[in-house]
């Protein structure tokens, strides 16, 4: 009797597990019945694409134009560059640094669109206990940054401006989440990063922003990058820029709604999102000569410092939509 009950229970359990797995399978199936051309876009949480995705207008407009949009979320820009190179995604939204290093390592990518400057929200935040008031106080301190992100360029520019070399400070290469804990516990003195991490460090962990991108000319723009897809599908790229641009205009004019939307989707405190949204503007349009020269400056600086091994002329890789 006891055995029978046991057997019955394990059968029910097994059926339950298999049924859940089957349900999971049906959840992963994407609706492939439509005859529309599919465009896959890589993005990171909280970026302009995330705004367009959460708002929902973009998908509808693209559908009308004949494209089915699929979003894929990535943890960082380098993973997006890998996916672009292998043709698994058609477009990707990244910061300013991953495309530069990707180009230097021989990937063939194209700059499709550029956003507005995020210089005010990007910079170095110092902990309260570190006693750092200005960039000259950085000497001898422990500073966290994340390689192959805009923070790597930022810290180099700041050190140059302060007249310090990398041997004058202790640089630690950490992921955003690791650095976040280290900052909160005071294990590092300063943290080079961008919004919403900077505003979160300021408001949640009472840090002080000692320098921003404005001072050292690091804009940390958003870029839409593509592999060969954009070149071969100019109409798709045009539609993408147009409709994303409309979402960005909406974001600029509806900041209260935007804050509400992002607070919910990012699960961050409202004041953090508010600060992030209010110290930047949103846009996405064809890559300007100013943006190109900024990317060129990053590329050159990485080459001189030996981070990349190849000199790249950025303007050759900017998509010309005429």
């Amino acid at each position, binding site marked *: 009797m006891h055995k029978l009950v046991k057997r019955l229970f394990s059968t029910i359990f097994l059926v339950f597990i298999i049924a859940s*797995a089957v349900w999971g399978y049906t959840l992963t199936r994407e609706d492939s019945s439509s005859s529309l051309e599919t465009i896959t876009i890589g993005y990171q*949480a909280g970026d302009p694409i995330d705004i367009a995705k959460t708002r929902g207008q973009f998908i509808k407009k693209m559908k009308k134009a004949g494209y089915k949009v699929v979003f894929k*979320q990535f943890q960082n820009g380098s*993973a997006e560059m890998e996916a672009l190179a292998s043709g*698994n995604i058609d477009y990707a939204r990244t910061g300013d640094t991953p495309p530069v290093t990707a180009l230097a390592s021989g990937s063939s990518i194209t700059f499709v669109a550029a956003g507005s400057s995020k210089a005010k929200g990007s910079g170095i935040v110092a902990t309260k206990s570190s006693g750092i008031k200005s960039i000259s106080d950085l000497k001898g301190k422990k500073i966290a940054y994340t390689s192959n992100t805009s923070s790597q360029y930022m810290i180099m520019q700041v050190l140059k401006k302060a007249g310090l070399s990398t041997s004058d400070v202790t640089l630690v290469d950490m992921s955003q989440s690791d650095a976040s804990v280290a900052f909160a516990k005071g294990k590092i003195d300063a943290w080079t990063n961008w919004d919403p991490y900077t505003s979160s460090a300021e408001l949640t962990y009472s840090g002080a922003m000692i320098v921003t991108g404005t001072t050292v000319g690091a804009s940390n723009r958003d870029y839409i990058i593509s592999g060969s897809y954009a070149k071969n599908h100019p109409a798709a790229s045009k539609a993408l820029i147009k409709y994303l641009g409309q979402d960005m205009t909406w974001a600029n004019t509806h900041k209260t709604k935007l804050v509400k939307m992002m607070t919910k989707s*990012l699960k961050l405190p409202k004041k953090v999102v508010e600060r992030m949204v209010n110290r930047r503007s949103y846009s996405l349009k064809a890559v300007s000569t100013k943006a190109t020269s900024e990317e060129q400056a990053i590329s050159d600086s990485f080459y001189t410092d030996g981070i990349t091994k190849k000199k790249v002329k950025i303007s050759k890789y900017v998509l010309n939509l005429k």
Partner: protein
Amino acid sequence: MQTLEENPHNIKINLAKILTNLLHYLLPWTIPTLIIISWQLASINGLIESTILPSPWQVVQTTITSLQSGVLEQNMAISLYRALSGFVIGGSIGFLLALCTSLSQTLNLLLDSSVQMLRNIPHLALIPLVILWFGVGESSKISLVTIGVLFPIYINTYHGIRSVDSNLIEMGHSYQLNSWQLFWHIIIPGALPTILMGVRYALGVMWTTLIVSETLASSAGIGYMSTNAQSFMDMSTILMCIMIYALLGKLSDLMAKSLETSLLNWQIKGGMING
């Protein structure tokens, strides 16, 4: 006449038996319970900052809200699908490979050293290759789990078959069993305990590789939930996911254990006949 139950001495024994049984059930849970209680107390007293480590109660609340919105169930189902399909594919490949190498000397020479070389490659190192070959869809996630599960099953099956008592095989020969009978009635039962050990280990590896694979261009699954929460320091979601991993680990272990007891019944039966 006194019945057994009325004998005060017997009642004492029964009571002692019940107490030891109770202890058996409770003892494994003492350490986790103590940890959770002291953690909650430390959070209430402000010894632990809630931004660094939220209290267990906050984690429970997060779990309830994600269950209510249906997000957690969906993500768990998707993870389960990836894990199980990877396990089935990887397990079958590993099992068949091990059969080849353990039963044929030629195939052993041909394949075994290659498998041993591939075995020690860390899964994280394979991610760029997996993206290149399988893309960023479901197949890349399932293939990573497949790779993870394949090797423990392979090694244990191989080892199990190789270490079957040669006297038993000789006995089979003298009973004039054909090779299929020999395989089915002597080799497989003899190797089964070791194979099941491999299954148990592989179930653990299955979850850990799944978590790694779900950090890659994913938009669903438990691994996605946790890495997404990680990038914004959503500590209570991270802790919830950690709890779920622990739970899933325990669950897989239970599954493997019940598989062992039902498949290795013959050992117990045999023991009874001998006794």
